[in-house]
């Protein structure tokens, strides 16, 4: 059976200094040369500082690879105006590599002298045009240096791709099969809907994490559409993951709805002009009279500021809702006296069981900063709760988005998003509800759908459809999420996902 085999190396950090481990590089390159690979991808940080002598050495070292090679610039390569040298010593910063049945499009995601990433407008449009041009290819690979979804074991979520949400949305819409990247020195493979996100660890840099060794990834594109990635460490250990896109995706509703959730966020009740009181009144009426959910979840930013007057108003609104409620605090809620006021008005969020469903609230808000954290103890608590309630349908509820949201400038809003995402996917949570960023978005990572709510009644949002909230219906074998326009009540399907191993409460 025909297949394509790719060696994926990254973060070689070639330099005369101790950061570079030449023997690890040679070991991996020899293995690649002996292996049956069609081509090799290097996802950046070829050099350590972007210096001329490093580029000279790198161009020599890279020639040891006896296969077609695509090299992408990383943040270290563009230090000291290294991007000019990259083009001179290595090759183009952006480009296209065609192979049988497929295409690899690589894009420069670096920002000179910063560790963060960005695929700016010109490059984004160029990428889009290439995806259109190669739309009919069976395998579409996009490669860049920066990671797209948070990675475990990276400490703090930082140096992110500022517009990761927009890039992710573009790749999903164009049915890209594989995104390859490096940057964080942690090998990892996630499946995001049908996109395999393949992070290489570091091939030859001293800076590994958690005492890990150097590694590279082996990608196999199978003729039947399967994308297989093996993380191969220099010790010879291998971790293998694969995904086969399901096509067509057909949903045949059977049986009655088991549970209906209304999910909202960022009502930001206040007397500021950005707060749309009438819209929120309308939403409360729609919930009570038309939607009649089993539970209403508010993902935080109930008030715009943590002051008594706003909490009093907010409380009046939410008292009007007849259904069960679960409210977690957002960063706005705990500003000023908010921490105490939240507890006074809404109480400590507690695990709520409803039939066979368990709602697990997670506190992520920090005092006076939009950046959230679950924390190492919080993650353990969450993991224990997911284990304890394994038999039920587990819904994790927190304020901060874990995967990047389109139209928002992602700066790592949840500082330990990588470890939290691993806790959630590892514990196979059935659903995760978040509400930060002012835009609605739903995506499945591994087996867990993560749904973000837009802003329900705050004018400062990022949603082209205006203020909205989500309506989530759970059936025996699927979850259906509609986004409901807050003023007009019209619905749009935001996502629909199968529940593995049909659930019966």
């Amino acid at each position, binding site marked *: 059976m025909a297949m394509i085999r790719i060696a994926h190396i990254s973060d070689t950090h070639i330099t005369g200094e101790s950061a570079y481990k030449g023997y690890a590089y040679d070991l991996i390159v020899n293995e690649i040369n002996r292996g049956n690979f069609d081509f090799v991808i290097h996802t950046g940080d070829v050099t350590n500082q972007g210096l001329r002598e490093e580029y000279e050495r790198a161009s020599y070292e890279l020639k040891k690879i006896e296969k077609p090679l695509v090299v992408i610039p990383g943040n270290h390569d563009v230090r000291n105006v290294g991007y000019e040298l990259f083009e001179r010593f290595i090759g183009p910063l952006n480009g296209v590599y065609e192979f049988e049945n497929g295409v690899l499009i690589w894009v420069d995601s670096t920002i000179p002298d910063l560790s963060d990433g960005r695929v700016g*407008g010109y490059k984004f449009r160029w990428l889009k045009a290439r995806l259109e041009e190669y739309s009919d290819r069976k395998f579409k690979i996009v490669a860049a240096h920066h990671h797209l979804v948070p990675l475990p074991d990276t400490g703090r979520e930082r140096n992110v791709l500022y517009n990761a949400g927009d890039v992710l949305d573009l790749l999903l819409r164009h049915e890209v099969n594989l995104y390859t990247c490096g940057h964080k020195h942690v090998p990892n493979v996630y499946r995001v809907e049908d996109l395999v996100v393949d992070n290489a660890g570091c091939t030859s840099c001293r800076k590994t994490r958690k005492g890990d060794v150097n590694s590279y990834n082996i990608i196999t594109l199978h003729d039947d559409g399967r994308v297989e990635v093996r993380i191969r460490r220099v010790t010879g250990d291998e971790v293998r993951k694969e995904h086969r896109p399901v096509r067509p995706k057909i949903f045949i509703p059977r049986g009655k709805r088991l549970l209906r959730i209304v999910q909202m966020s960022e009502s930001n009740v206040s007397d500021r002009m950005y707060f749309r009181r009438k819209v929120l009144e309308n939403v409360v009426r729609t919930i009570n009279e038309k939607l009649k959910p089993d539970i209403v979840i508010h993902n935080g930013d109930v008030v715009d500021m943590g002051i008594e007057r706003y909490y009093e108003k907010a409380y009046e609104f939410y008292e009007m809702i007849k259904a069960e409620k679960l409210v977690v605090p957002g960063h706005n809620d705990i500003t000023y006296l908010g921490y105490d006021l939240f507890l006074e008005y809404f109480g400590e969020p507690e695990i709520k069981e409803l039939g066979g469903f368990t709602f697990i609230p997670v506190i992520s808000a920090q005092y006076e900063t939009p950046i959230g954290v679950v924390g190492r103890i919080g993650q353990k608590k969450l993991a224990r709760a997911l284990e304890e309630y394994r038999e039920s349908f587990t819904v994790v509820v927190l304020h901060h988005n874990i995967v990047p949201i389109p139209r928002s400038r992602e700066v790592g809003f949840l500082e330990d998003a990588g470890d939290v995402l691993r806790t959630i996917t590892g514990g196979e949570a059935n659903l995760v509800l978040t509400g930060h960023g002012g835009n609605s978005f739903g995506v499945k990572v591994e087996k867990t759908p993560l749904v973000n709510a837009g802003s329900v009644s705050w004018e400062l949002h990022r949603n082209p459809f205006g203020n909205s909230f989500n309506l989530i219906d759970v059936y025996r074998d699927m979850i259906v999420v509609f986004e409901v326009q807050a003023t007009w009540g019209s619905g749009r399907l935001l996502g629909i996902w199968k529940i593995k191993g049909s659930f019966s409460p």
Partner: protein
Amino acid sequence: MDMGAPIKAYMTRKLIGVGPDDTVKRACEVMVEFDIGSLVVVEEGRVIGFFTKSDIIRRVVIPGLPNDTPVREIMSRELITVSANTPVREVLDLMAKKGVKHMLIEEGGEIVGIFSLSDLLTASRRRLETAIAAE
């Protein structure tokens, strides 16, 4: 909306359907519950038919068929499809010329999505752009 983008970028790739032996009543319940105007008919994981609300008016209500008629008797078997790689511009042109509100999208011999007028309305507000920086 990007008129040059392949229709796959804007289509609904998750299809909601019924079985061929499901009744028209059940199909209508699904349409109402999911707020959609058409359904695919699925047998053994493959799309074998398609029908819209107006098909129900034309083929069930007016002839006076009972609402427990199986959908296989009223569905369209001849499917109007376009390839998933067809640019949006061409799909709109085809829909306008054929006067249809729903277009089934095909790839590799299988129905993989649908593009309807409501998808068009959604797409009209969705630019595949980034505001992050001009760079």
